[in-house]
């Protein structure tokens, strides 16, 4: 059945709906005026962003530090977990699936609030470390599921074949399982990176003074009102997203 005119129209409208606000923001990042009335083309807001916005770059750096470290840890633990779940014969796999699905079902704000109370309760100072812990926590289930779905493309007998040919457990792991699941591992890493860089709500609760991340910084700037600097940051982040999306498309299969 060919798609009808109706669904084509809706799709068209939806895409306009998606992109109009974004395009407007991009356009006005090049506006030569502070107020949202077009007066002329200028790079002034980018100049300001690159020369006199120390706190934004500090926040950006924090975001990058947290994203890379949290994604690395989440990917390693998630990959090992997926391998264990796929490979191992043990009881209680159902429980591991339940605690993996729960964080996806429970609203982010609950994860943020419960972690905040947890950190205060165990008297842990709120800092980049607590943000890192939170980010690893919400990325872990995604990493596990992505790698697991890649592993599922292969029959278990591949592992047995490695054993059969004389491989020890370590060799089967590093010479066979890790290489075949590598596209999944990479997808898990990039998924964790995006989740981490994107996260606002959970970070909002577990961040302490001096550990502002980019989304937190943008949030506080938005509260002050609209500004061409935000337009400029948004545009840069969008460019980053588009590059990332095109790159990620190859691995999309393991993400959805």
């Amino acid at each position, binding site marked *: 059945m060919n798609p009808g005119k109706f669904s084509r129209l809706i799709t068209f409208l939806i895409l306009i709906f998606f992109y109009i606000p974004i395009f407007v923001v991009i356009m006005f990042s090049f506006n030569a005026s502070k107020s949202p009335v077009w007066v002329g083309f200028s790079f002034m807001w980018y100049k300001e962003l690159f020369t006199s916005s120390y706190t934004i770059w500090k926040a950006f750096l924090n975001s990058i530090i947290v994203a890379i470290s949290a994604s690395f840890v989440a990917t390693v633990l998630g990959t090992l977990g997926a391998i264990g779940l796929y490979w191992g014969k043990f009881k209680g796999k159902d429980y591991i699936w339940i605690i993996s699905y729960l964080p996806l079902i429970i609203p982010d704000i609950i994860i943020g609030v419960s972690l905040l109370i947890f950190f205060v309760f165990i008297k842990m100072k709120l800092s980049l470390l607590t943000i890192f812990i939170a980010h690893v926590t919400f990325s872990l289930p995604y990493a596990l599921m992505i790698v697991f779905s890649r592993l599922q493309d*292969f*029959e278990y*007998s*591949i592992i*047995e*074949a*490695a*054993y*059969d*040919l*004389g*491989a*020890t457990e370590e*060799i089967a792991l590093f*010479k*066979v399982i890790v*290489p*075949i699941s*590598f596209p999944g591992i990479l997808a898990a890493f990039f998924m964790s990176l995006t989740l981490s860089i994107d996260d606002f709500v959970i970070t909002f609760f577990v961040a302490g003074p001096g550990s502002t991340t980019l989304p937190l910084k943008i949030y506080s700037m938005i509260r002050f009102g609209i500004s061409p600097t935000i337009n400029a940051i948004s545009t840069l982040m969008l460019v980053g997203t588009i590059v990332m999306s095109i790159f990620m498309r190859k691995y999309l299969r393991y993400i959805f």
Partner: protein
Amino acid sequence: MLGSSVEIRNVDKFFGDFQALDKVNLQIKRGEFFSLLGPSGCGKTTLLRIIAGLEYPDSGDVLFDGISVVSIPANKREANTIFQNYALFPHLTVFENIAFSLRLKKMSENEIREKVEKLINLVRLEGQENKKPIQLSGGQRQRVAIARALANEPKVLLLDEPVSALDAKLRQELLLELDNLHDQVGITFIYVTHDQAEAISVSDHVAVMNNGRIVQIGTPYEIYESPADRFVATFIGETNLMKAEVVDVNDEFIRVIAKGLGEFSCYKDKEVSKGDKILLTLRPEKIKISTKPLEGINSFHGVVEEEIYMGYQTKYFVRLDEGYILKIYKQHVNYLLDEKIIHWKDEVFVTWNPNDSFIVEVEKG
């Protein structure tokens, strides 16, 4: 390369409450081509995996050359497996797949190259060295799996339905190649299949399995010609089963009476006495069929109910006067010169030699 003898002693295997193997005993000679034959789910793969060390028996013992190997894990056992789905490493090329076990042994690059090339020649994969498994055809994948297993210089090669995923013609070809390969490398082959024609055509000995038990072990000739029981008789090839009652017994032959057939003579291959109820098997190709009366002790008259022309032979279903429907295969030695071509609804005479039927079950009467 030299093979090992393999002995299975009283092996039991349970999956939960389900008994997959029941007191299995086997003795496989050094260098033999041995087949495990049985219907789907009878436990062939389970037994093979126990020999490979990928599964542990709940009781019993597995011995290679008289030495128990149950405590030796799969990666140290001198047996290698061709998996049902080949289980090639998707991320490695053909060359690297074959070299996998050699690299683990820390061989020098030159040695590896030399050895892999030899194996590639042996399984005729020249020119495919740098392809990934996904770029190969089914038959080629199977050859890589064989070369990869042989690279490890096993003393026993375990093959789990290695040709079942291929089409009929390729199956025949690769089967023949496997047979040749076996002659060349001289190691013990244990071959699992549910296809009786495969097992019969290549094996030195065949073990027929059913429901986790071994029901008969013998040469292909023995299991085809003198099946041990009703299951083997019907599972291997096609046959006529006849229920009969013994009415007379002498040294070599018995007289029986069967419903739908009447009275006839059979070879006494099992001890029976008058009044016993027995089950007889008679292969369809052992029966002579003609439009003219035939000489013989067991002669019957009937009508052709169905005729299936198959090229090299014709299958007939003949309803005997007393009602029994006999399956008969007639080979076409020279189709046109055969006396008269028999067709549907023709009246025919059939006969068979009493030596050709076998007793598969006896119920003392």
